[in-house]
């Protein structure tokens, strides 16, 4: 095992620990050491067993699936918890992405300014950009929720779909805001100096020596750690919130709105709160996405990639269950990515059917995801992991 493998293993360790804590059963006291040991073994084994290209692909796959998992958690806090049918995820996702891009980039200077326009560029650090992305998306969610949340479910679905389209039109057509139809480039990657040749000055010498064998193309391993941490924070927050009295009230409103109102609860305000919370999380996901792909434009936020697939993930994983949402994100993203390989393999057969078909193979993936959603709706609308109907930690639910 050489230094590069060891360094990659070190980066994989933390995400694997978090994964272990998520999936391993049992009590906390037992789970933590078990997860640590398992993660250490797997982290050391993976670089040895897999060729470097496969390992890098796995890391970038997990990063993207992790970003989708954050989006799914955002949707789950709206749909799973309170029953909002938000068909406009793409809108809040894009607001988060562009907000963080505006706050963290600097204004284009000199000749570049002629090609690239943006409203402002403050050059703030990554964490501040993420926070602002969440705040601005939440503010947008709040503005939207006032006229729209009083509506019935079907109107809400139509209205949110419209909002996402309007937001996309704005990012497409307003040059001054975020460079119009052209992509916004050069969104800084956090801590990317770690892999530069003279590593960042603030990096301790020991760590710098540790990561020295890695090149900038290994950056995805570092970003996987960042995504995993943010995902874990959002997950813990939502788990805590949905067990709190506030979370119970949200489910009460979802299941029996009139009864909740009869008990003197302010139903409208609570519904707005959960919508804003979900928008905040979607905004954070947008920021995490923007800093990962470095260059974003309006076309990234079309209804397929940013709304439809997220719904399929949450429906597959299990509405109202945060673990299910994460599982759904990885499963559907696996299907989506795996289908690309299958279509590649099948391309001679497609060629035989029609010469145009291989170049349109990408749309077979759409079809597959649409079929998946149809099958879920028809045969398992509650998803893989059902919501746990647990009223309180202090009342046994009959199983234990």
């Amino acid at each position, binding site marked *: 095992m050489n230094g590069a493998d060891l360094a990659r293993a070190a980066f994989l360790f933390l995400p694997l620990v978090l994964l272990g804590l998520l999936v391993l059963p049992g009590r906390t006291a037992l789970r933590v050491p078990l997860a640590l040991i398992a993660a250490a073994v797997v982290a050391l084994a993976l670089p040895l067993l897999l060729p470097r290209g496969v390992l890098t692909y796995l890391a970038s796959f997990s990063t993207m699936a992790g970003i989708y998992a954050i989006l799914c958690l955002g949707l789950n806090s709206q749909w799973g918890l309170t029953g909002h049918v938000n068909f406009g995820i793409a809108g809040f996702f894009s607001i988060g992405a562009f907000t963080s891009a505006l706050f963290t980039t600097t204004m284009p200077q000199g000749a570049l300014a002629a090609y690239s326009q943006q409203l402002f560029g403050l050059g703030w650090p990554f964490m501040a950009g993420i926070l602002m992305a969440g705040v601005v998306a939440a503010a947008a969610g709040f503005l939207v929720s006032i006229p729209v949340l009083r509506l019935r*479910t079907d109107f809400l679905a139509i209205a949110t779909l419209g909002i996402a389209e309007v937001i996309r039109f704005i990012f497409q057509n307003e040059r001054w805001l975020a460079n119009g139809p052209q992509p916004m480039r050069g969104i800084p990657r956090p801590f990317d100096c770690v892999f530069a040749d003279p590593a960042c000055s603030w990096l301790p010498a020991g760590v710098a020596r540790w990561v020295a064998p890695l090149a900038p193309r290994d950056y995805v391993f570092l970003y996987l750690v960042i995504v995993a941490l943010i995902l874990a924070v959002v997950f813990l927050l939502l788990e805590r919130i949905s067990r709190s009295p506030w979370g119970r009230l949200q489910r009460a409103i979802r299941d029996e709105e009139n009864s909740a109102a009869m008990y003197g609860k302010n139903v409208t305000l609570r519904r707005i709160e959960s919508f804003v919370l979900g928008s905040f999380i979607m905004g954070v996901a947008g920021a995490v996405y923007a800093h990962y792909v470095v260059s974003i434009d309006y076309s990234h936020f079309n209804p397929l990639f940013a709304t439809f697939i997220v719904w399929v993930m949450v429906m597959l994983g299990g509405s109202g269950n945060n673990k299910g949402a994460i599982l759904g994100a990885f499963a559907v993203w696996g299907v989506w990515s795996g289908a690309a390989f299958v279509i590649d393999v099948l391309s001679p057969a497609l060629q035989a059917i029609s010469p145009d078909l291989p170049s349109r193979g990408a749309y077979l993936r759409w079809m597959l995801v649409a079929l998946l959603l149809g099958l879920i709706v028809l045969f398992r609308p509650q998803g893989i992991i059902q919501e746990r109907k647990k009223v309180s930690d202090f009342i046994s639910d009959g199983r234990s």
Partner: protein
Amino acid sequence: MAEIVQNAPERSDDRTARERMMAALRSRTALGLALLLTLAVFWLLGQQQGATLSEMLSLTVWGVMLGGIIALGAIGLTLVYGVLKFPNFAHGELVTLGAYGALTFAAVLPMGPPMLPFSFGWELVAALILTMPAVSLIALAVDRVLFRPLRKRVASLVLFAMASLAAAFFLRSAIYLVWGSDFLFYYPGRANPAIDFPLDIRVQADQLFVFGLAVVLVILTWFLLERTRMGKAMRATANNPDLAQVRGINTERVIAWTWILGASLAAAGGVMYGLASQLRPEMGFWLLLPMFAAAIVGGLGSPVGAIAGAIIIGVAQQVSSAFLNPAYGPGVAFILLVIVLVLQPQGLFGQGGE
């Protein structure tokens, strides 16, 4: 203290006045006035941007014609909502299928000379007539596979909406697979000169044809709904499905005819939209928001309302292009939709209450 007591009745009076004002704001007349006011503001904004009177009149006339196309889609949307009680997000794809279906039929048929002053020959009219039942069959198949099992289970509205979203993406991916993502035209490069009308209004002959056909189809639909047994059964089912079934109306048959009618009109709308601009796989999705807006402005479940709403939406979209980037057209439709939802969610002609 005394002051507060003195003020109290005045304040409560004030509140009732406000309540009365809110109630007046939420009436149907007020909604109609608000929509007209929005159109008037759009008109003034357009003139402020330097558009001449005749340009604004032309835009209005084009808006009415766009409204005719939107109406064909919106009637189907509103009928499906009335009878099946869910918003059908796949309706835009029926529009797209209609447009592309006619393209394929027209390519198979022998091409005739253009029927002057129109830019198309008889084969497009024949293709239009062929594509309507073809799209109806597709809609019936989707209903059979997807929506009927959900109906049997009495699934929630959200599941129906999700299912229609799945159907939308399935159909759109099929359209991409069969016809590709390029822009297509029924008659690439064929000239279609505009005809001059009084007041400097210029309209293409094709646009006139599109509008005339839309009017004919709308009248036929009205006749079908008001004068035939099936139309009456459809309206009865929309009003009260249980009562309709008890009275011996075959609900499944009514649902099938709703799909056939809605899909045929959507397909015709697609052909007209393709004739007026170009064919692209996203065209139906682009029309979905205006169609929903039209159906909601007019009141979901009301075909007459859908027509009125479609004309308002069409005019608003075209007139707004005098002062706004035309790409925002669906956004303008959305603004009107929000105005209606906030003021009076039942729309102009919808039934009050639940």
